């Protein structure tokens, strides 16, 4: 189907994958970019139409790299994996140190020896994380389809690396870049701040002066770099057109092209009267988990980061499988929670099954004409339920392990029988 022979166009294989909407619009970057450049050549601003929604920095960057696009995307994936490897390596050291401190302070109960993590078991985790990202079929798909989320993932991975290494300056810059690219990483400000505070041994108390000082410093760094990047984009194309085209597009969801998220069909079938209301509700839904999670997980900012990234990938307005690949890469870090996970078998089967059905039902709807949009929508629903339950399962397992660590592994009721743990 992909027409051959045109300069800069995708080859037949990747074209068919890229066109398949399920792996879809994290925008097929190559096509969008060539379109943007062609519009610039014709003397028309690329943002005057409704096709181009990339940021000016990406146009500028790829202006020179358009010939080597495949190589660039492979390199970004490798960079992401390397960044994650280094980050998790450092993180493991921090975890181990913290654990040792808590054991010495006698915060743990007496019979939790099984739950204590040893350096032996943590040795291969960074490698597992890197491999989990590189070999994930979702990552491969998004690399082949050349979608922007590979670049997003790289920036977020570098942001995590900078945060774990403790450099507030670099972390703020990468976070500003990530926010500039797609609006949602602004919620990662909170876990990064918590992590840096923990690293500086500043306790998170609302009355503490050092807490506010550090927070404002970090916020100032972040906001300044964001402003600098936006002004730089303005000077690149000499207009503010990109702001409604990029951010207005993300927030108001005008394009209803089917993707793996929940938004498109919802707004395709929405009554006009309620459209604005539900757009606001869905956007708030992404952002409002940050504060409660920050309150609950203030001792564990990396887990908070993981949950936040997962929430962004599930509820953002145009999700792609590349976003799913990013938070799935973190799962080996929490592999010690395996014994507390309740539904892992069903959920993994669900996710695999849905991923296999996505292209099939897409093809049946769009090309064969024998299925309806409802088939594809149903798979979207189940895939998102699977993701949500996966994240909440891990969250539950994490909380449970923390409880056991502080209260002992073998709990007994007053009459000596084995106790059950319940959320109340």
């Amino acid at each position, binding site marked *: *189907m992909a*027409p051959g022979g045109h300069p800069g166009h995708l080859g037949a294989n990747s074209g068919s994958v890229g066109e398949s909407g399920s792996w879809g619009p994290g925008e097929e970057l190559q096509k969008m970019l060539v379109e943007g450049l062609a519009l610039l050549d*014709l003397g028309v601003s690329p943002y005057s139409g409704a096709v181009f929604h990339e940021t000016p920095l990406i146009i500028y960057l790829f202006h020179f790299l358009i010939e080597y696009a495949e190589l660039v995307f492979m390199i970004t994936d490798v960079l992401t994996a390397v960044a994650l490897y280094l980050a998790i390596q450092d993180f493991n050291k921090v975890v181990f140190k913290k654990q040792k401190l808590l054991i010495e302070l006698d915060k743990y109960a007496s019979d939790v020896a099984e739950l204590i993590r040893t350096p032996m078991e943590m040795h291969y985790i960074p490698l597992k994380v890197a491999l989990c990202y590189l070999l994930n079929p979702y990552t491969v798909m998004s690399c082949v389809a050349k979608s922007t989320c590979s670049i997003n993932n790289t920036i977020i991975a570098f942001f995590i690396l900078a945060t774990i290494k403790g450099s507030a300056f670099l972390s703020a810059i990468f976070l500003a870049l990530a926010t500039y690219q797609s609006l949602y990483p602004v919620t990662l400000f909170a876990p990064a701040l918590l992590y840096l505070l923990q690293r500086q041994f500043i306790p998170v108390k609302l009355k503490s002066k050092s807490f506010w000082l550090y927070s404002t410093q970090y916020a100032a760094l972040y906001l300044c770099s964001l402003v600098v990047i936006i002004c730089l984009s303005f000077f690149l194309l000499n207009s503010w057109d990109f702001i409604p085209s990029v951010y207005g597009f993300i927030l108001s969801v005008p394009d209803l092209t089917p993707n793996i998220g929940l938004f498109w*069909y919802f707004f395709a079938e929405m009554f006009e009267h309620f459209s604005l209301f539900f757009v606001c509700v869905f956007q708030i839904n992404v952002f409002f988990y940050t504060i409660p999670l920050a309150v609950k997980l203030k001792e564990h900012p990396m887990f908070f980061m993981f949950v936040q990234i997962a929430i962004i990938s599930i509820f953002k307005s145009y999700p792609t499988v590349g976003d799913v690949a990013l938070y799935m890469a973190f799962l080996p870090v929490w592999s010690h929670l395996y014994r507390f996970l309740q539904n892992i078998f069903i959920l993994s089967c669900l996710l695999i099954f849905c991923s296999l059905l996505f292209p099939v039902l897409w093809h049946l709807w769009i090309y064969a004409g024998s299925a309806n949009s409802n088939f594809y929508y149903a798979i979207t629903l189940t895939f998102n339920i699977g993701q949500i*339950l996966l994240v909440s399962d891990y*969250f539950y397992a994490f909380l449970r392990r923390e409880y056991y660590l502080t209260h002992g592994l073998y709990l007994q009721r007053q009459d000596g029988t084995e106790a*059950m743990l*319940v959320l109340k």
Partner: protein
Amino acid sequence: VDKAWKELSNILSGIFCASLNFIDSTNTVTPTASFKPLGLANGTDHQLLRYAVLPREVVCTENLTPWKKLLPCGSKAGLAVLLKAERLFHSSYHSQAVHIRPICRDASCRAVSWELRQTLTVVYESFYSGQGKKDWSLFKMFSRTITEACPLASQSKIYVDISAKDKEKELLEVTPSPTSLHEAIVQGEKRTYAVYDLLSPSLFNTSRSLNVQLKWKQPQDSLELSTPILHAHRYVSGYGLQTGKISTLIYNTHPYRAFPVILLETVPWYLRLYVHTLTIITKGKENKPSYIHYQPAQDRRQPHLLEMLIQLPANSVTKITIQFERALLKWTEYPPDPNHGFYVSSSVLSALVPSVIATKEVDMEQSPLFTSLFPSSDGSSYFMRLYTEPLLVNLPTPDFSMPYNVICLTCTVVAVCYGSFYNLLTRTLHVEEPSKGGLAKRLANLIRKIRGVPPL
């Protein structure tokens, strides 16, 4: 200008009983090169020009009736008597037009008046319906004849094309005999017309009605039509409901002259054109247009506008292709029969076609019909505007029976997430205390005690 445009389209919609009030910003464009105001208009600013097409609407009897009312005699006298709807719409092609332009009132051009020109074009297929003969008559076509000329008309004429191709003068015969013969050069060919002047008294003195008849002397077994110098064909290709390609083929059959043509394409916003896939190929090689004006569409506000000036070499076929992607619309934006598809309006080709025979300068007063129908500014070429076929494109449709279901299901998924996270965030883990049992348990234990079974 947009306000005046909206008013104009609404007024015209009311006058002609046509759905012209559906013209809004989603199908209006501002062409830069293809159209120029006719008549005395001074303005060359293309920002004041608007062009809109409604490809889905068809012309019907309701549009014919107000059109006829605009004529000075209505359908009571003159040529308009022939225009009865039941025969008129029984044809292969039907077209109505109303043109208004400002012209000079007299030779010194001190005052400007408005000229209203109405045209009606009908194509009858008499070859297949007339038992294989190409004979026709006014009565056969319109089932009535002309009885008198319109008293308000200053000129009322019927022109019958009796050009003979092979210089055999006796190939056809027209009855009754015409009042005069007129020769003109139309679209590069010399044509002879038999003229019936309805206002001349000699026409109606033999019979009360005029029934022009044309008979061919020798049986015609094949339809021979000369191919026009410029013709075009447009089609959409591709399979599936995601992408597609619009291809336009433009033929220049002139043996040795090349000429430029302006192509205007208006594509609705829901077919997202990719201008980097625009290719123009002539005789196997790429042909770069000397002027491109592209205005990309904005979702739900403005259609795509693509105008190009392309040079057509002699005796060639030019293929212009552009790819597009189909968008999913909101369920209220689909027309009543969504699986019928969406229409893409015709593209417009405007060209000054070089003519084989040089045209003479004709005075507008002598033959107003020919100068307005076949305008030519200089003798060597004539102006032609071609409209290609409209296209029918299918878009992916959501299920229209599902709005409540979709809202409920999606909100359920969001609620699942909200619920699990709310539980995990606001509740803490506790060791479960064995409770004395709720009401149900106590009742069950009571019943068991009565039965003599050990309690729960």
